[in-house]
Structures are given as C-alpha cells and as structure tokens.
C-alpha cells in the first residue's frame, strides 16, 4: 500500500491500490512514520499506482498538506487527476500528471551535453533525454525557474513538457536555430564590441528584474556559506573580514543568472536568448560578476588552454572580453573604476574556487596544489585591499 524510495536527498512515497475509509488512517500513519524517520519537509507522493481514493483518503492528504505545504503529488493518471481537480486539490498543491511516453526511434541526434542527449522530434521540437534516471528533480527545477523568468519578461526558451523516453526522463523544448555568443566570438572576432554591448544589455535587464519573494534562492546566503567554509582555511583576521564583506553586501530581490557566460547567450535571427536557467537566484549584481570572473578568468589562469576546451576561444580573448564587459557595465573607461570592480569580482570568484578545490581534494595533484596556493595568495592580497564589495 505505502512504500518509499530515495533519490539523492529527495524522498518519494508511493501509494498503491485503493485508499478509502477502511485503510485511510493506517495509510496516514505509515506515511507519517516514513517522513518522520527522514527528518525532511519536502517530499513527493507518487500516485501512479493509486487506482481509487475516497473522501477519507482525500482527508488524509489534507492533513499532510497542512504539515507539509510543499509536498507534491506526481504521476497522477487522468482519472485521479480529475478527482483532485474537481475537489480543488490541484489549486492548493502541485499535482503532476503522469508523464507522456515518447519514442526517439529514428530521431536525429543533434547535440550532446554533460547530462543528456538532444534529439530532434519534429520540425518545432527537440527532446533532451537525461542520462541519469533520477534527473526529475533537476528537470522540474530548471523548468520552474525558466518559466518564472519568461513570465517576468526575460527572453528564454522554455521546456514545454516533461516526458518519459524508455526508462529516462526527457524535457521537450522548442527547436532553436541559434548561435551562441562564444561561437560568434570564435568565428567573427571583430564582432566583439557588439557582443559586449548585447551581453551587458541583457545582464542589466536581468539585474533590474525584481523576483517575487521566495521564488529563487538568495545568492548572498550561498556566498556566505562559501566564506564561512573558508574561515578555517585562512588566517583568522582574513577569514573574518571575508565573512564580514559578504554580510555587508546589501540584500536584493533582483534576478541573477549564476552562470552568465557566452555559451549561455544565444542569437536566433535577431533575437537574443538566455539559456541554462537552472542556476537562477536573486541577489546583488556583484555576485554575478564573481561567477563571470571565474568563467572568463578564474578557472583558467594557471591552465590557459582550458578556456579553449570550455569556450572555444583563447585566454587572451577571454580576458579582453571580460575587461570590456566591466567597462560597458560601468559605462566608463576609467581604468581605476574597472579594476576596482574586477578585484571585487575576483575576490568572490576565488572564494568559490578555493572552497571547490578543498572539497574536491584538488591538493592531491601538483597542478591542484599550485592553483590552490595561487588563488589563496590572490584572495589574501585582495582582502587586504578591499573595504566593500558593493559596486
């Protein structure tokens, strides 16, 4: 009747068969003991194999919703969905229908990413089939935030549907005939100023888009967790200063992309679109610059060939592009002002990279040790020179 499965940190409770007055309270107890054992507040209830639910069954769902307002029902077949819709449940919690099965037999493979393969389904649509069979949580997250961004007026492509492809999840997107800014910079480097201008324009649109409270994670909290992590790895005074500097950054409800580099900005006809929305957050723009610094400079400083693998262009172009972006964002050619923003971005960038290096035990290799030492030294220098992270 009641079983459960865990994927990553997500608990899914599966209900089977009939839930009516004869077993409703037993089912509720079983569900509650499953949740209590896990110490969590968010979980899914998979009702794919639920064939009947009476009003007594609906009442136990109501009890659960009161305690766990973020729980979701998934894989509802159309009969059950209709019951939930008629009784108003679909308005108080998220109920997801069972996913449509599609076949990719004979479909052209048009791209391959780190987490999935993209097939062309028809003239208008592609499906991204995720490699990990438990990718559902990530898919739904990206879909939700992309949809939020679109509604708030950010030009992005959104997923129209989540489907099942064999035993994997897939996300259906519209077909884009688009070129990334990275591709343009590689093939038409003389367009760099146009790219910079459009890149900054879109970034400013993003940074002036106010997100309703609670819809996206707060980047300041994330960066603060990096800074706190580093405290025990830095001299006491420097560690404390790092935390204080991040704490002092003003709170903001404005949208940040979180991975705003030139592969994630694409042009289709005359339209510029932002893609890869899974890292959306809210916060002060300086945090965006921290991740941009890493994408163009921080990751590659001691391994400059790296940027070629990642972006396709060389380190020189990468650093020039970043410099131009800073100048355009500040609307200045005052080198001192540009350097000041560069340093603040670098300070946040190094904080993230050092934490990442320690957590991944990168000091096991010589290259990793060199990078950690270099980044730590740079961070300490920047900390000694910086009194505020605000732009």
């Amino acid at each position, binding site marked *: 009747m009641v079983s459960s499965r865990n994927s990553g940190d997500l608990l899914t409770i599966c209900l089977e068969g009939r839930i009516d007055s004869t077993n409703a309270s037993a089912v509720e107890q079983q569900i509650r003991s499953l949740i209590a054992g896990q110490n969590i507040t968010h979980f899914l209830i998979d009702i794919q194999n639920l064939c009947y639910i009476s009003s007594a069954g609906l009442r136990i769902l109501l009890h659960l919703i009161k305690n766990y307002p973020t729980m979701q029902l998934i894989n509802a077949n159309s009969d059950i969905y209709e019951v939930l819709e008629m009784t108003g449940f679909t308005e108080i919690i998220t109920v997801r229908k069972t996913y449509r099965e599609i076949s990719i037999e004979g479909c052209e493979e048009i791209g391959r990413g780190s987490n999935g393969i993209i097939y062309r389904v028809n003239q*208008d649509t592609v499906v991204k089939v995720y490699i990990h069979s438990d990718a559902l949580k990530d898919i739904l997250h990206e879909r939700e935030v992309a*949809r939020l961004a*679109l509604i708030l*007026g950010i*030009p992005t492509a*959104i997923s*129209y549907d989540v489907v099942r492809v064999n035993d994997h999840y897939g996300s259906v997107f519209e077909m884009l005939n688009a070129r990334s800014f990275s591709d343009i910079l590689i093939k038409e480097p003389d367009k760099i100023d146009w790219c910079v201008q459009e890149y900054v324009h879109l970034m400013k649109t993003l940074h002036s888009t106010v997100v309703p409270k609670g819809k996206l994670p707060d980047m300041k909290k994330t960066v603060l967790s990096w800074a706190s992590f580093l405290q025990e790895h830095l001299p006491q005074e420097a560690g404390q200063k790092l935390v204080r500097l991040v704490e002092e950054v003003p709170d903001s409800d404005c949208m940040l992309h979180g991975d705003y580099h030139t592969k994630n900005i694409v042009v*289709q*006809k005359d339209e510029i*679109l932002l893609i890869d929305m899974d890292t959306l957050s809210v916060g002060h723009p300086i945090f965006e610059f921290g991740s941009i610094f890493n994408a163009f400079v921080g990751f590659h400083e001691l391994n400059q060939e790296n940027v070629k693998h990642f972006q396709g262009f060389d380190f020189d172009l990468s650093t020039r592009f970043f410099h131009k972006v800073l100048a355009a964002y500040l609307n200045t050619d005052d080198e001192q002002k540009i350097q000041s923003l560069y340093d603040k971005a670098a300070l946040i960038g190094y904080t993230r990279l050092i934490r990442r290096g320690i957590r991944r035990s990168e000091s096991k290799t010589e290259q990793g040790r060199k990078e950690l030492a270099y980044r730590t030294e740079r961070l300490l220098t920047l900390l000694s020179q910086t009194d505020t992270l605000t732009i």
Partner: protein
Amino acid sequence: MTIQQIKEGPKLTIVIDGRLDTTSAPQLEAVVKEQLTGIDDLTFDLEKMTYISSAGLRVLLSAQKMMNRQGAMRLTHVNEMNQEIFNVTGFSDIMTIV
C-alpha cells in the same frame, strides 16, 4: 501567419491565423507596438493559431504588460494544444483565457 485586425473604437480584436514562431513573432510585435494606442479592450482570437513558440509567448506577454496599464486583454478560442502550452508556461495564471 496572417494577422487580421478588427477595430471598433477603443476595442481591438487581433485574429492570428497560422504559426506564431520566431519568424512571424516580429510581425505581431509590430502590430502590438503600433496599434494599441487608445485601446482599452484587446482580444486575441487564437482559433486558427496552429503553433506558438516562446518568441510568440513573449509578444503576448508584452501586450499584456501594456494592457495592464490601459485596460483589459483576453485570449479567446484557445484550442486544447495551445491551452496546454499556456498551462505549462504559467501564462494561464496571468492572462485571461475565455
């Protein structure tokens, strides 16, 4: 795609016939930009709209933003396929579909 406009004083109905995609969205965008002055009641008749892409959705969104300031906007004759798209994109929460 073809666009037909039916105007009665401050009331405007825009009838979309065909695919509202990246190619045709700019055409509708131009109509929205140029024809909404003085309009307080805007209807999009979508009975014959066979496809809508995110570019098309964005034009509807910008029309909605303008009409929020100057009157009302609704979508009519939305077929099942388009309704599904408005549902998954969250448009059905922010637009009036009748």
